[in-house]
């Protein structure tokens, strides 16, 4: 997995192009944001006045992020395939540049989603993050994992006829090793309890494995 200067230029061009198109179409961003907002608001209303454990809240946050992300990521390659631009992109850009360009675009979209939904979540559930840096580190590592797994899964399901149902079914088991430590670390960031940094290392290592596997597999798609 070696990226040359021209590949970096291609990656930057693909990220920029996807952002311009994403902002003009708005549908994908709107779907992600509205899903997250609706889920957080309805869950907050239904648990109003009830004490909710930090572990449950942490799981809730990641469930919202996962499904909101699913709503946005699944179209990463499919929108291009539907529009007929994927063959053109594949002809002019290097395969690895396409994969990493899409992956970075997805990651930045997820960061935007989280910047939007996290403050709302913390306010509506009246949560104070005792260890805010741990929360940020956990969320960033979790989002990288979802972006890597989601981009590969989106590429895999582009040619499937039942992609809408297939995407979350395939994505969930791949991202499970990320979610378990992410939920546990998010809980500790809420409570301020002592944490073992090895969980962060496990998440980072799994992300590296996911990115490497995606890079190797994408050449065969």
């Amino acid at each position, binding site marked *: 997995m070696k990226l040359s200067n021209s590949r970096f*230029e291609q990656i930057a061009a693909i990220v920029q192009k996807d952002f311009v198109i994403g902002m003009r179409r708005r549908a994908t961003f709107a779907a992600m944001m509205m899903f997250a907002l609706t889920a957080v608001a309805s869950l907050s209303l239904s648990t109003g006045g009830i004490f909710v454990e930090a572990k449950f809240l942490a799981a809730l946050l990641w469930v919202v992020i996962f499904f909101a992300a699913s709503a946005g990521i699944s179209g990463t390659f499919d929108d291009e395939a539907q529009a007929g631009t994927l063959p053109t992109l594949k002809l002019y850009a290097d395969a690895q540049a396409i994969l990493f360009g899409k992956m970075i675009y997805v990651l930045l979209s997820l960061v935007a989603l989280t910047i939007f939904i996290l403050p709302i979540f913390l306010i509506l559930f009246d949560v104070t993050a005792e260890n805010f840096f741990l929360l940020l580190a956990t969320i960033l590592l979790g989002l990288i994992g979802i972006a890597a797994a989601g981009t590969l899964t989106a590429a895999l399901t582009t040619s499937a006829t039942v992609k809408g149902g297939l995407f979350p079914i395939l994505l969930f088991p791949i991202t499970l090793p990320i979610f378990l430590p992410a939920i546990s670390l998010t809980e500790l960031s809420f409570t301020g309890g002592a944490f073992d940094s090895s969980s962060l290392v496990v998440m980072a290592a799994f992300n590296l494995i996911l990115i490497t596997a995606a890079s190797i597999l994408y050449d065969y798609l």
Partner: protein
Amino acid sequence: MIVFDDVSLSFGRQELFKNISLNMRGGKVIGVTGANGAGKSTFLKLAGKIIRPDSGAVNFPADKKIAAVAPEMKIYDNLTAQENLFFFAKLRGKTLSAEKIYELGERVGLDLKTFGNVRAENFSTGMRQRLKFAILLSVDADIWLLDEPTANLDDDGREKFFREIQAAKPDKIILLATNDRAEENICDEIIKLPL
């Protein structure tokens, strides 16, 4: 030079190409003709390594870059004409100046001073074809794969296209899949595919 070495390709039970071996040299326009379904577009995709043969191999030097104008190679409707040109040129490591874009527009008969900031979704089929043609000229490729390239162009567009092909052919390998008499007439060599 593009070399087909004992290439075979089937779709299901339909055998499209069987043990084809040929060399295609640069400096001329090579036409690929045949009836509908003979495999003209597939031949171009094999030549450009866009698809892989079932057996045999297609070879050309690794540093050769490909560009194409084909019905299934769409441009981005949500981007303007200029943005499409910038994007595809950037993918090939080139940065286009505004003057270069206007010049490309003139060469293909598309007024990019007026329509440069218009999204491609608002273009007619012929204007899109001219934009694809401008992208082809902008990326400086060594191999051109042209699949019925003038199908949606008016006489002026066809004339400009033919002129550019003739001017470009000394430095390139140009494969042109067609059933059009005028397109066949500009070819220096014809590969006729049997049905």
